[in-house]
């Protein structure tokens, strides 16, 4: 076939006369067959691992985003505080597990120098051997992550997966309470089929199956500064955190899930902490050794 005609044919740029000439060319059948057979090498069907579903239905409260400027000095990518339950372990050998007891906080350095600070009564697992292939940890409880820049970093929890893009963020997974707070950089939270991206200052909270987006003002979890902050959190969660920070048991007759607490309690003095919790809610407390009773 004439080279010019071939060129035009490949460009789908033939006049009617040229087209007739091409189709009558002895090479035409062979050439066309080549093109038809190319279809057999079509790319695999691409199905996004996480489909972007509309989150308008899931998110109740309207969101006002406050974008904060990233500080360029930190090479540390993401800090995730994830408090999640480990629901299954994926790894066999070379698995490192770090657990914290009541009142304890621990820092874990991951193979790529990412840092994880575990809050009390939490557990973190990862496979050091396969770290260069995929950065993945399993977390139960609560932790603050500072993820070094690199490949994506996944935190698996019983309620969802958080993928970090190089940020600082916090994740809480306690029972049916699942929260992710982004302090710096960008975080993508996957739950079910949906994906929620977070900017610094954004947080998403799941409680009893409902998702809510909101903003935070602080730059790191409060428990790093020996206190715990809460923003409209069920009282039950607050008291459980009090138990973890002081290694006590809290007993009460109150219907704890109906009351919400916004405020702070200190980790340094139990009486003061109890005052901080009970005063705004007009409750009373009674300390008896390692047991505290809360009442009206």
């Amino acid at each position, binding site marked *: 076939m004439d080279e010019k005609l*071939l*060129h035009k044919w*490949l*460009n789908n740029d033939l006049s009617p006369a040229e087209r007739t000439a091409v189709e009558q060319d*002895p090479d035409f*059948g*062979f*050439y*066309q*067959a*080549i*093109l*038809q*057979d*190319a*279809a*057999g*090498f*079509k*790319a*695999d069907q*691409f199905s*996004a*691992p*996480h489909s*972007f579903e*509309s*989150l308008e239905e899931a998110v109740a409260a309207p969101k006002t985003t406050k*974008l904060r*400027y990233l500080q360029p000095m930190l090479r540390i990518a993401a800090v995730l505080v994830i408090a999640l339950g480990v629901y299954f372990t994926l790894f066999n050998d070379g698995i490192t597990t770090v657990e914290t007891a009541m009142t304890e906080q621990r820092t874990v350095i991951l193979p790529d120098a990412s840092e994880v600070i575990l809050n009390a009564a939490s557990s973190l697992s990862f496979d050091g051997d396969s770290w260069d292939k995929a950065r993945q940890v399993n977390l139960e409880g609560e932790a603050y992550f500072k993820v070094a820049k690199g*490949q*994506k970093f996944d935190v698996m929890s019983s309620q969802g997966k958080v*993928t970090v*893009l*190089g940020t600082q963020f916090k994740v809480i997974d306690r029972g049916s309470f699942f929260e992710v707070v982004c302090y710096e*950089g*960008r975080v*993508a939270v996957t739950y079910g089929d949906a994906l*929620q*991206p977070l*900017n610094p200052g954004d947080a998403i909270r799941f409680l009893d199956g409902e998702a809510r987006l909101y903003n935070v003002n602080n730059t790191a979890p409060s428990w790093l500064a020996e206190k715990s902050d809460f923003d409209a959190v069920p009282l039950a969660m607050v008291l459980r955190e009090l138990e973890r920070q002081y290694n006590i048991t809290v007993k009460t007759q109150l219907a704890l899930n109906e009351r919400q607490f916004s405020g702070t309690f200190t980790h340094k003095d139990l009486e003061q902490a109890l005052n901080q919790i009970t005063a705004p809610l007009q409750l009373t407390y009674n300390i008896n050794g390692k047991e505290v009773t809360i009442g009206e």
Partner: protein
Amino acid sequence: MEKNLHKDVCQPSVYEKLYRSLSKDVHNFLYYKFGADAEPADKTQEAFIKLWENCKKVSPEKAKAFLFTTASNLMLNSLKHKKVVLKHQQQNPISHTGEDPEFIMRTKEYYQQYQEALASLTEEQRVAFTLSKIEGKKQAEIAEMLGVTKKVVEYRIYSAFAVLKERLENFRTK
């Protein structure tokens, strides 16, 4: 600091739309360029993540070019000179025109040769050829994706076809 752009990739709705409309194209581009074994799905996700990371600096109009360039670069970082393999699907669509399809002896060796011929093309030739002849993309669109002119795309397709017809000549029946 107020955003003065009306549409901004940092807005989740804008980002999500970009994902829905472009992720398949990015995936296929990577597949054709680097092969099935290069994990194009993962790299596609990473490219979108990078877009999100840089959402302040990339306008929606520039997002497509950003994604293709980023995806390509991400792949180059992790590739260890793997052989490029485009898998052949057995369910081969038969000629729609009803013309006599027997211009080629379609043996196993033929498909093997075809696969190797595709692997032997330069990345640029392969991408241009497959996006045009398998995905049916217009050459102008391919040019935009790759950041080159339409003439360059035409030339690459032509060069790719020249290689294919030479390597498959032995299987010709008529």
